[in-house]
């Protein structure tokens, strides 16, 4: 008995070590650094022909730790121009000292109405975060009829609207360029950069520290077991062992009765997300398709994740009052009821991953090792849904209005989650609020690993963990505090 406990402890530690190594193999690069680009202001007007000796000065702030590329939206006036454009980046407005970067480009290679990107390569500007830089563009021998022009603006698109943004003033030959309302404007710049994360830098220290803490905790639990003291992990394991069979039976019951009298039975678990996806695909592909790469997979991940959440939350909602007769007759820890409901929805979720995998293959989306991160996202999704389910189950016992309120609220949440529309239609100034939506965090995480095939940066992991654990803790607390009163109210 004692040896068995020690063996389990060692297994846990080994599992941690293997998972940590595997995780570094899959996500190591993303943990160290993530690449990103800014979106430019919307073009409003062109500067006009960019001719000999014209100088354009554009200050900008870099948000990235390292500035790796800079793109400018240009127009060629629909012809080939034989000018040479000199670009330089300075750390001061007065061209003192050496430029941080300079490059000359033949204008012939530029395409009309596209962003021309200067890759800084090994000249990438390090330690750039938060600093102001000055971009200068000069035309060597541009003439009227043989010159490019540059777009500028001071708004960004937010869905159907455009929103004014504060920009650093663009100067042409020392004169600030203003729009019709005398507001400063900026070139349509696209900055590309890399953010470095300390998590990646110190990964092995964190890994080792985690292993040490885990080992100490396992020793503590073993100590508690030996002296028959109480501790959280031990009582968790004990109740898991004790109620494992009951859980198995309850989950099997939910799952069997769900499709018991239907002809297609368990096939519905595959068909349901596929059919929903097909309908929404037909409806929305005309509206948004151009904005979204791989719309099929985009849509299906959103539908599957949200369907699970909605199903689990609804099942949990009824789990206490629906089992009223049992709760009145037999003692079973009450958290078992919502947990078994969430788990049976979880099985459904796993089944609906099969059509998702199928769609990945059909759309020829490259499947990378990042797909191994899927269990993390799914576990977070499960914990979040269980947490919400606990809150709902508790509320439902005391206020039967909860079910109707929840119907409305979950619909609202569905529209607040980018399931079938692209995130870009959200006004940028509300994005931070929009991103507080837990379903947003989780669905975006899943999409990054499936569609882009890479691991998201550390912030996305933290986001997922927070949106799962906070509702879970609140749910457990509320449930625990009220569970003794359930029997009096059902």
């Amino acid at each position, binding site marked *: 008995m004692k040896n068995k406990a020690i063996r389990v402890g060692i297994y846990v530690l080994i599992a941690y070590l293997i998972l940590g190594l595997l995780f570094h193999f899959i996500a190591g690069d993303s943990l160290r650094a993530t690449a990103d680009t800014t979106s430019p202001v919307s073009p409003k007007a062109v500067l006009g022909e960019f001719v000999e000796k014209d100088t354009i000065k554009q200050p900008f702030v870099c948000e990235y730790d390292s500035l790796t590329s800079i793109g400018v939206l240009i127009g060629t006036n629909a012809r080939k121009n034989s000018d040479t454009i000199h670009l330089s980046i300075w750390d001061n407005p007065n061209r003192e000292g050496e430029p941080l970067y300079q490059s000359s480009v033949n204008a012939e290679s530029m395409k009309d109405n596209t962003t021309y990107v200067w890759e800084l390569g090994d000249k990438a500007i390090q330690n750039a975060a938060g600093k102001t830089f000055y971009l200068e563009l000069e035309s060597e021998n541009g003439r009227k009829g043989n010159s490019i022009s540059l777009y500028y603006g001071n708004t960004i698109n937010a869905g159907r609207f455009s929103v004014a943004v504060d920009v650093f003033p663009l100067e042409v030959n020392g004169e600030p360029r203003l729009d019709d309302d005398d507001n400063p404007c900026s070139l349509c710049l696209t900055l590309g950069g890399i953010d470095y994360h300390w998590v990646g830098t110190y990964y092995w220290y964190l890994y080792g520290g985690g292993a040490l803490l885990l080992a100490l905790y396992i020793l503590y639990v073993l100590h508690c077991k030996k002296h028959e003291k109480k501790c959280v992990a031990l009582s968790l394991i004990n109740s898991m062992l004790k109620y494992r*069979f*009951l859980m*198995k*039976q*309850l989950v*099997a*019951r939910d799952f*069997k*009765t769900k499709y*018991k*009298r239907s002809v297609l039975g368990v096939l519905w678990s595959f068909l349901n997300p596929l059919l929903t996806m097909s309908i929404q695909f037909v409806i929305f592909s005309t509206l948004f398709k151009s904005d979204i790469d791989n719309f099929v997979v985009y849509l299906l991940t959103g539908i599957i994740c949200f369907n699970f959440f909605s199903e689990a939350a609804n099942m949990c909602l009824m789990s206490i009052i629906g089992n009223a*007769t*049992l*709760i*009145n*007759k*037999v*003692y*079973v820890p009450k958290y078992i009821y919502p947990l078994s409901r969430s788990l049976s929805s979880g099985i459904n979720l796993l089944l609906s991953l099969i059509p998702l995998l199928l769609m990945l293959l059909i759309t020829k989306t490259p499947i990378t090792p990042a797909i191994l991160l899927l269990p993390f996202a799914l576990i977070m999704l499960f914990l979040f849904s269980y947490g919400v389910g606990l809150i709902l189950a508790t509320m439902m016992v005391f*206020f*039967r*209005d909860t079910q109707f309120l929840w119907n409305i609220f979950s619909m609202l949440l569905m529209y607040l989650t980018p399931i079938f529309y692209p995130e870009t239609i959200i006004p940028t100034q509300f994005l931070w609020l929009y991103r507080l939506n837990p379903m947003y965090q989780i669905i975006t995480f899943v999409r990054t690993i499936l569609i882009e095939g890479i691991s998201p940066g550390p912030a996305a992991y933290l986001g997922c963990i927070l949106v799962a654990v906070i509702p879970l803790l609140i749910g457990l607390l509320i449930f625990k505090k009220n569970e*003794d009163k359930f*029997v*009096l109210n059902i």
Partner: protein
Amino acid sequence: MIKAENITVCYRMSHDRIRSIKEYLVALVKGKIKYEEFYALNDVSFEIKKGEVIGIIGNNGAGKSTLLKVISGILRPTKGTVSLQGNVVPMLELGSGFDYDLTGRENVFLNGAILGYSEEYLKEKYDEIVAFSELGDFIESPVRNYSSGMVMRLAFSIASMVNPDILIVDEILAVGDMEFQEKSYARMMELMSHGTTVLLVSHNLDQVRDRCDRVIWLEHGNVVAIGETQEICDRYVESMRKT
């Protein structure tokens, strides 16, 4: 074996039950949330030794069922503690965990799990349960096709296939037709005579006199007397006659 100390169960009964947020807010604003305190059990203490068969008697509403719920852990007392050793099996209402869409076999395992049996134990006893219930091939068809007598027979067979340390019985159950009633009665007697600690609630005083070592007499949530079976039963009958 079972030690109950100062168990008090106090319900707060609002005059009209508030079921929605709107009603709650309206009542709160009006300052009309008044609770009436109702003591289902008031300061009940007793001790039961291993292997004793204890009868609990009293009129309707005396708190007998509440006491059973407290001991089986369904209801947490407002005050006081219950400490007990061993597993408790309540036979309060048969078949409450049945799912009518599942087959008899599936329900044996589901209901068994709810009653706290282990998987191995159920697998071992499965044939015995089916044999006792006399359901035959019906065990493989959904419970919704059963007659009510069949449901009760299956439920009883599952519930009685126990080997508990503490058995809680709300009326001795005799279900089904005459033959099965006899069989189930015999089965209950067998369960109660194996050195199991039994708590029996019954209105059938003859059964109590027959079976119990001691009796707890409850009235309006208070213990009137605890003691030797015949004596307490006599006093109970006497007090009934007076009123």
